[in-house]
């Protein structure tokens, strides 16, 4: 089976972000970018499926500007076989929105015939958590979101997926092809090794212009304003526990 994995290039989780002067977006001109952590988990899962000989081919797909190739290379270094780079100059953290991403992925699906899409459940830049669901809808495939465990049946016709839901764990079975989105505890991604990064340079990345796929890329949502979280107010010190309780009560917190 062939597994497609989505890899998004997002602001690094540890980076300190600033807002653009026009307050319309985060300033990403000089910020450290990295593979979206949930996408990294999806890549790891796909590579493990390959190592278990369940998947024959793992294809890493990223949509974005030239630098999106960096995260594809990272997926290749982790063990993906080849990459597809869908090029667009739209900002993927807000201009190119989940529905358009899902449409691009649906268009690629028709052409490449994967047995599954493995996606991160959400990206840490826009926190949308919509692409997997929309893609399943567009393809009319079953969806298994927030996966914390994935087991593909021996005949590769279905997958048993454990989902993290509010009340605990839910185990479902979905026929393949399906869309699966990875939650935080699905696995711990490996560190790409230096030799594998060197080898990844030689793996193939195909480039497709997003505009050539015949899908509507226009956004459905307009960003009105982006603002920084309120800064934390200074705390105050109290003498003892009694004073603490009194203060909490006075502030209506107890």
């Amino acid at each position: 089976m062939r597994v497609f994995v989505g890899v998004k290039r997002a602001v690094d989780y540890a980076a300190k972000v600033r807002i653009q002067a026009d307050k319309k977006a985060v300033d990403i001109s000089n910020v450290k970018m990295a593979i979206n952590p949930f996408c990294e988990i999806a890549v790891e899962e796909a590579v493990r499926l390959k190592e278990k000989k369940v998947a024959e081919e793992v294809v890493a797909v990223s949509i974005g500007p030239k630098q999106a190739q960096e995260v594809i290379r990272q997926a290749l270094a982790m063990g993906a076989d080849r990459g597809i780079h869908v090029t667009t100059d739209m900002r993927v953290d807000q201009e190119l929105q989940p529905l358009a991403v899902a449409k691009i992925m649906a268009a690629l699906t028709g052409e490449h015939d994967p047995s599954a899409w493995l996606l991160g459940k959400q990206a840490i830049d826009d926190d949308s958590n919509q692409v997997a669901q929309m893609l399943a809808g567009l393809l009319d495939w079953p969806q298994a979101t927030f996966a914390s465990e994935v087991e593909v049946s021996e005949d590769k016709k279905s997958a048993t997926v454990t989902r993290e839901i509010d009340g605990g764990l839910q185990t479902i079975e979905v026929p393949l092809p399906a869309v699966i989105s990875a939650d935080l505890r699905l696995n711990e991604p490996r560190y790409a090794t230096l030799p594998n990064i060197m080898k990844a340079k030689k793996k193939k990345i195909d480039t497709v212009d997003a505009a050539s796929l015949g899908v509507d890329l226009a956004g459905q949502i307009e960003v009105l304003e982006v603002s920084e979280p309120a800064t934390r107010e200074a705390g105050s010190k109290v003498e003892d526990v009694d004073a603490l309780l009194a203060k909490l009560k006075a502030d209506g917190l107890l």
Partner: protein
Amino acid sequence: MASTSAAGSDITGFTRELFMGRLNSKFMHPFPEPKEEDLETLKMLVDPFSKFMENENDAAKNDRECAVDEAVKESLKPMGAYGMMTPEEYGGVGLDHTGYARLVEVVGAHDLGLGIHLGASQSIGYKGIVLYGNKEQKEKYLPKLASGEHVAAFCLTEDGSGSDAQSIKTRAVPADDGSGDFILNGGKIWISNGGLAEVFTVFAQTPQPDGKDKMTAFIVERGFGGITNGAPEKKMGINCSNTTTLNFDDTRVPAANVLGEVGGGFKVAMGILNQGRFGMGGALTGTMKTCMKYAAAHAAERTQFGKKIGEFEMIQGKLAGMATRLYATESLAYAIAGNMDRGVTDFQMEAACGKVFSSECAWWVADETLQILGGLGFMREYPIERIVRDLRIFRIFEGSSEILRLFVALYGVKAAGDDLKPLQKALKNPLANLGAIVGPAVSIARARIGAPEKPSLDFAPAQLRPAADVVEDCAARLGAATRELLLKHGKGIVDRQLPLERAASAAMEITAATAAIARATRAVSRSTDTAALEVSLANGFALEAGQRVRALIRDMTPSSEAGTTIDPLRRDIAKSVIAAGEYPARHPLGF
């Protein structure tokens, strides 16, 4: 990435020229850098490697337990950390010098002891096989060494032989069965990885046809027999690296395991050390950046007398001194690595400067960090005390600061002497060679009255003129002072270590300052976001270094107060100390 081009092969070294009052700016400017695609690859390598070091390696635990955690070592093997520069065809990562410097910077930022464990294997332990091994030796040894399945050790130092490497006593004599094998006997001390290594690069005296001994390098496997190592030494720092004695008792080494040529061992040893030295600048840059983080955070957070201590000028002075030294060290480290990558072969003096400069700046930076942190810095919960302990050895091993200063000064002085030869020859027969005398003599005279032929860093943009002016002035002064020293002492200069020490220190500072200027020049020409800051760092370093260098050069000349009075005094005092075997003065109370 190991795309060594021949483009730079005609570029000669920078530091030697300084002793003749010249600035060979081609070495530094344009500041060497990898090709765009190599940079992209390197960027990809740095990220996971940094995350691994950050999340998986616990330097404090390694230090406490005096060993690198086994799980970390196991993870580092597939990571490629044991064979970063080993060619890909032998299973290594195949990095160039710049790439290696950048990755060991990551190691140096986290754990110098681990850095020594890794470096002792690849940077010196089996570097000889990469540099001088034949095809069979490379095929046999490199794959297992690059993968970390085996580690290597470099075995030169002996009980009676440290800086004077030629004096080793370990001997390898041809076996009397006519097999061509060698029988190795002797003892080595302070061998990094000595207790862990499977493969050793061993230096031993071998008898020559003329009856004299000459050094030969051998690849020795632990399995050859007769090899024992002592218990791990208890050390001040780099505790997780394994350091032991090593004994060879009738170890039979096949003829095929001679590394390089029989009798060519000294050249092999120096080649390995010269080639490996550049990495230290990279590693220590990382260490200094870690120190800066702690110092900056503490300066911003700690309140005393109602102010953040970073608002006080004394702390600001320290932070600025740390940042400028770091900038100079980093610039020099990457200038050297970049030149090695573009095929420059004349980098030995610069690499020696880089080793001394980086180890001394790192020591200074760590010490100032500890001072800024005050009592906290002294506590085990903070990493600074460990970093200080770990750093101390860097001024001693792989060529001590003293021996490398002599190396730099003597090569510099020799070049200046060769430059003066026509003059000296002419002086022997002055009447016949009037023309030959007049030229140099005039320039010497000019140098004496402070108007030498002006060396130039004409590439520096206006913002960096303050730094460039200092470097130009210092280079001219060093050239003039070296000539004066030579004319006074002639060949006797080799024994005048005090002025030589000053000359080397001056040359090192000028070399580092020029690297900083060249790098800041690039930042200005590209209008990078930190260009203005880099200009300040380069100017700040050069101006401060200039003050030190002018004092050093002033004290270099035979007619100076240092030359006429202070140095003779120091020599006499030292003689008294040695003669007494202790502090020689009478107690102020008389008992």
